[in-house]
């Protein structure tokens, strides 16, 4: 699919459109770049020929008295397009700006045929005098939801329950069939206990016979919360009593069960980490140390709640990036820091350093980072000339581990010019010979999958094998992360499957 079409589909009024209506919009779609200071249309002059969506940059609307500044995702020129009257505003690019332009005829055709679409615009135009719309993709903020949404709104599954006399095996079966992680035990219409997946694992591990009654092993009494309580209240109730599931009741009737995971999922996972990262840009070394250790705690908490590896790693890596940037700011900006390897891929669950520093001594930086709590795994420092020499010697004697690490390089801080010169050298490493070295190198399963993935990308191989390698890699990383929490039978099967995919890819690449 064309990227602009995907983009439009993610914006609210366009998501109301059918495929044929989207096609109509797409047929009349153009994109233009406006230099700083360029007038896009003038107040009181000719009616607009297009409806504009600002994709990148900054545009000012001015009605002669007041002005408003538009940013990415804002739409303008709508009123004039609908009425055919001259625009009431002058639109001017304040920065170099890129806009999507929807031809007026296409826009009107859809506007006249789709009621939901047209209502969206007319309602907003009525309410606001300024003919601009915020087409933000974001729903109301996650944190806001914590304090306003009712916990009963989070219940997505109907209540799964059983009687106290139900056998453990039977209860497990009911949970499995209903795809839930907990079951409520109800007696005479009242909840008397709760039995969770975690309880089940404990029983199996202790060889408890599964034909015993569930009431013998349930948690009781149950912690309840009123259906009208806010999500925040619920979360606090759970954390303060150290439980992961809570029963939601209304007038004594059980409405359902909410887990901490349900709440964290709704929160986009970042809640606890959000407030921590807000403090980083202004923190002192001592504060950074504190923040980092709090981040690690939160991250471990999220792992134990079954968070997806890549999702979690992206968040934690983002925070570690912020901390490193904060530290580097204390050392001036003539240097250039490049994240490589694991850090380059944004896979740091824990605070580890894989980096390259250009044009600066690293002794002090290293000490500071260690003091804050980073583990320095790989920190290299050199000049661009040294780097060219390193690349030359890597071409002569390829070292898969090193090459793989550099291929993941991304800019973090400092002089971006140095980064692009560094990166430009990397393209010399993208040869067929090096692809083969990567594919045939030995290492752990995730390392080998990753190296194969890089090899197929260098070789420009498309198709199923690439997707399979990507999937295998993310599954294996997820399992690796959970290893410390115990490995399951399913995990073993998945690991075996991943090894098979790796083997296939290796054979395919060696045959080239």
């Amino acid at each position: 699919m064309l990227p602009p079409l995907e983009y439009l589909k993610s914006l609210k009024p366009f998501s109301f459109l059918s495929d044929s209506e989207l096609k109509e919009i797409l047929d009349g779609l153009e994109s233009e770049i406006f230099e700083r200071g360029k007038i896009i249309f003038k107040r009181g002059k000719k009616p607009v020929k297009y409806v504009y969506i600002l994709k990148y940059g900054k545009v000012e609307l001015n009605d002669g008295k007041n002005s408003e500044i538009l940013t990415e995702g804002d739409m303008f020129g709508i009123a004039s397009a609908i009425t055919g009257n001259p625009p009431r505003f002058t639109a001017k690019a304040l920065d170099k700006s890129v806009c999507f332009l929807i031809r007026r005829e296409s826009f009107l055709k859809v506007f006249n045929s789709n009621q939901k679409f047209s209502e969206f615009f007319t309602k907003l135009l009525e309410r606001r005098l300024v003919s601009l719309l915020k087409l933000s993709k974001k729903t109301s903020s996650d944190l806001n939801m914590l304090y306003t949404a009712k916990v009963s709104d989070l219940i997505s599954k109907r209540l799964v329950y059983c009687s106290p006399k139900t056998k453990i095996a039977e209860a497990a079966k009911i949970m499995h069939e209903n795809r839930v992680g907990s079951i409520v035990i109800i007696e005479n219409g009242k909840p008397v206990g709760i039995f969770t997946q975690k309880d089940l694992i404990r029983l199996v591990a202790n060889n408890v016979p599964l034909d015993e009654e569930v009431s013998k092993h349930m948690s009781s009494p149950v912690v309840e919360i009123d259906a009208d309580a806010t999500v925040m209240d619920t979360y606090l109730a759970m954390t303060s009593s150290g439980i992961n599931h809570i029963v939601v009741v209304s007038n004594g009737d059980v409405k359902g069960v909410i887990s901490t995971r349900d709440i964290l999922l709704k929160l986009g996972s970042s809640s606890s980490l959000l407030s921590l990262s807000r403090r980083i840009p202004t923190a002192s070394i001592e504060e950074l140390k504190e923040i980092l250790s709090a981040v690690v705690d939160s991250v471990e908490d999220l792992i134990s709640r079954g968070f997806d590896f890549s999702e979690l790693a992206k968040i934690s890596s983002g925070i570690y990036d912020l901390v490193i940037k904060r530290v580097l700011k204390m050392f001036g900006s003539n240097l250039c820091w490049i994240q490589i390897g694991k850090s380059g891929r944004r896979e740091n669950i824990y605070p580890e350093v894989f980096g390259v520093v250009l044009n600066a001594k690293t002794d002090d930086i290293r000490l500071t980072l260690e003091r804050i709590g980073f583990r320095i795994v790989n920190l290299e420092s050199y000049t661009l000339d040294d780097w060219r020499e390193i690349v030359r010697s890597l071409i002569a004697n390829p070292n898969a581990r090193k090459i793989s690490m550099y291929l993941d390089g991304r800019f973090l801080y400092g002089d971006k010019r140095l980064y692009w010169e560094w990166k430009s050298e990397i393209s010399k490493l993208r040869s067929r010979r090096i692809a083969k070295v990567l594919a045939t190198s030995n290492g752990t399963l995730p390392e080998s999958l990753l190296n194969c993935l890089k090899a197929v990308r260098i070789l420009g191989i498309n198709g199923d094998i690439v997707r399979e390698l990507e999937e295998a890699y993310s599954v294996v990383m997820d399992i690796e992360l959970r290893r410390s929490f115990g490995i399951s039978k399913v995990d073993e099967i998945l690991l075996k499957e991943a090894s098979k995919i790796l083997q296939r890819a290796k054979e395919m690449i060696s045959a080239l």
Partner: protein
Amino acid sequence: MRFSVIDLETTGLNPKKDEILSIAVIPMEGTRILIGKHFFTFVRPKKLKGDSIKYHGIDFKVLNSAPTFCEIAEKIREMLGGTILVGYAVQFDAKILRNHLRKCRIKLSFKAIDIARVESLLMRMEGYGFVKLTFDDLLEKYELEGNFRHSALADAYYTAVIFQHQLKKAEEHGISLDDLIRASMD
């Protein structure tokens, strides 16, 4: 000035022997990308062997029911004639297109602009040493979303967006179209 931003998928890297499997074109008028006028088609190669289900990552059935190059050659001439080709490593695309068109008895010569070469030129103007960037590097530099391989049509679109920015920058540095074409020659 009119441009045709192209992205081809081919059976290999030899412009004399290899064949085109798909072609994506996005027209531009100056810096304006005419997204709605985009064109994409798979192309059935002459030497399509029926023994593999996937052919260079493309579904065999899709290729088998696609038009031959000569069946779309007229349309290609219409779209590309009088325009400047724009692409990543575009000289190869220009060569293989010329060869294909010649086999359909259509003579068409192109001027071509390579966005990688243009970027090197612009970066030199901005004080860099000699820098050569891959397509993925360019995506990163212009902050375009994709990290992984896309479809040919998406790649053509991203190429157009990069070129749109480059044209503006070239204008600022007083670099002419002829300079860009010259910098793109082999």
